[in-house]
């Protein structure tokens, strides 16, 4: 008997000054599941995530997080989620440790969770060692991303919304981050919504995926189901076949 979905998206539409970013998408994420939204740049992934993170109101349709409407109950939704934007930054004048403490303090005020415990978990997830006591301004892109991921996960959200979590990272940093997301979700039972245009990443990370193209969801299923359906070797091939794209040369 399936419980209440972590995320319910129904007929979601969003228009940016005449450009339709979302054309009525629908999907559902189960509790504790890692769900991947995959598609090329400009497909509507980030817009979907921003709506679920209460940053953007949809023009049409409905989006709920654990039964709470993202527009009407935005404050309740914010208590349950943690969002990692694609192009996020941390306060450059703070140390990594100071940044985690600052964020934990804000969460602690709102949720009553123990700030020290959050910081302790954040330090573990970030894995930056002594560098955590250096200013963020001195961090590489990979280190900043690890810090931001630690910030997003240390609060033990019920839903983590991660927009291109490994975007622009080198192979080893990207691998480490994927591994941490997967382990954290399994250990803590946290539902995760990941967007990516890296099909192989999503195949490694996600229990189920939705392929989004031109503001429409063209396919949903587990990586195994989709590969079987399209007789494909990997999700990249599934994407090409499902979206009707053809590679030339």
């Amino acid at each position, binding site marked *: 008997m399936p419980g209440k979905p972590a995320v319910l998206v129904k007929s979601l539409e969003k228009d*940016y000054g005449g450009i339709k970013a979302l054309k009525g998408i629908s999907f559902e994420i189960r509790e504790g599941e890692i769900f991947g939204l995959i598609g090329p740049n400009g497909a509507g992934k980030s817009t979907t995530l*921003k709506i679920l993170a209460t*940053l953007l109101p949809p023009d049409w349709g409905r989006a709920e997080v654990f039964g709470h409407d993202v527009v009407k109950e935005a404050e309740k939704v914010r208590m349950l989620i943690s969002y990692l*934007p694609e192009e996020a930054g941390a306060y450059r004048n703070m140390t990594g440790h100071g940044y985690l403490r600052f964020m934990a303090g*804000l*969460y602690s005020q*709102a949720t009553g969770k123990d700030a020290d415990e959050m910081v302790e978990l954040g330090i573990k997830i970030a894995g930056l060692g002594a560098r955590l006591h250096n200013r963020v301004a001195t961090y590489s892109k990979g280190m900043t991303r690890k810090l931001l991921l630690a910030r997003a996960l240390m609060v033990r959200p019920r839903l983590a919304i991660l927009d291109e979590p490994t975007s622009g990272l080198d192979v080893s940093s990207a691998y480490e981050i994927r591994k941490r997301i997967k382990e954290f979700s399994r250990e803590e039972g946290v539902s995760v919504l990941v967007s990516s245009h890296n099909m192989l990443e999503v195949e490694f990370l996600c229990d189920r995926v939705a392929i989004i193209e031109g503001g429409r969801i063209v396919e949903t299923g587990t990586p195994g189901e989709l590969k079987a359906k399209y007789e494909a070797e990997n999700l990249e091939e599934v994407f090409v076949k499902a979206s009707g794209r053809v590679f030339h040369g």
Partner: protein
Amino acid sequence: MGELWIMFKKELADILRDRRLLAAIIVPIILIPLLFGVLQSSSRSSSLVISVVNEDSGEYSRALIEFLEESGVVIDNGSPVRLVIPAGFSDAIKSGRSPSLLIETELSSVLDFKTVRLAGALKALVLRFGEGVFPSIRPEFRLDVGGSVLSVEPSRYVSALLRSALAVPLVLFVIGVYASQAVAASVAMEKEGKTLETLLTLPVSRRSIILGKIFASVVFSFLVLASLTLSAWAVSMLPKTSGGGPTGVSVGVGPVVFFSAGVFLLFLLMLLTSLLVSLFTLDVRSALSLAGLVEVLYLIPLLVAFAGLDVSGAAGLLVKADPGYAPLWAFLSATNGDYLRAAAAVLYLLLWNGLVLRLAVWVFESGVLMTKSIDAGKLRWLIRVKI
């Protein structure tokens, strides 16, 4: 030098690519002459109109009046600036004594800068006439402000007044300009540093985020104010070198309290408005240039008052409706003993503050902040809007 030149060209190109910065150059060229053109056309003639009481029947007094008329002075008995030529003026010159003259000035309010300027211009003409006369003319002054009569030159009176009664509120206003830049930059820095999206998805009230930024800027501004006060105190402890302004110049506690309250509320309004406009910018530079434009809007009434322009008609109404006029309105009303009007001016500013705060919170809470899809068709050339 080569790398410096390359960097210089890159920075200049960046600036010129920014349409808002171009606007900051072009808008003043158009706006300020336009504004002052409108104000000048709405203001009454600024020719030097004085009244003359000639108690001397000698040749030098007649020569002085002729000289003034030839210099474009209009003699009209209704003028608040009066030149009194005492009996014996011509005889004093003939006998080689230093002749004296009296310039009487009646100010309609303590901020009647127009009349102050008239008196100053008359003094300059009298001194120029005196250049050809030996010994030189000694002009004396009699100043009437709301029934109080002082033997002081109007410009020195205003200068002393500004120093004694209005200095702190005016410093506060300058600090307001500084703080509004700081608050505008604080939001823009969140955008530029890509930290705003994270901040907006935290389980923290957005009103708290806004107010946190405002209060931090206010506290910062007060720290700057404290520093300025300390330095002013240090300067006042230095040994005096000259007499300075006239003593005993005061408008009383009430007007200063109302003026200070008005300036403080205007200061908050500047912060809130700068914050509001900075929500639509993408970087610190844009935020600062827009905050600068906002400050100019609130400074117009002050500029008009200090320039001594007498603005009437629709332009006059606009100047008086500008929240920047309210502290002056409160001050002048309180100076005339009309505390009800002074309180109304303060209330007017409070209403503006409430309105702009609500608007800023609404923008912060709505998707407008993220999409910047506000109907910016008319503003797009002025502010950087990401669509």
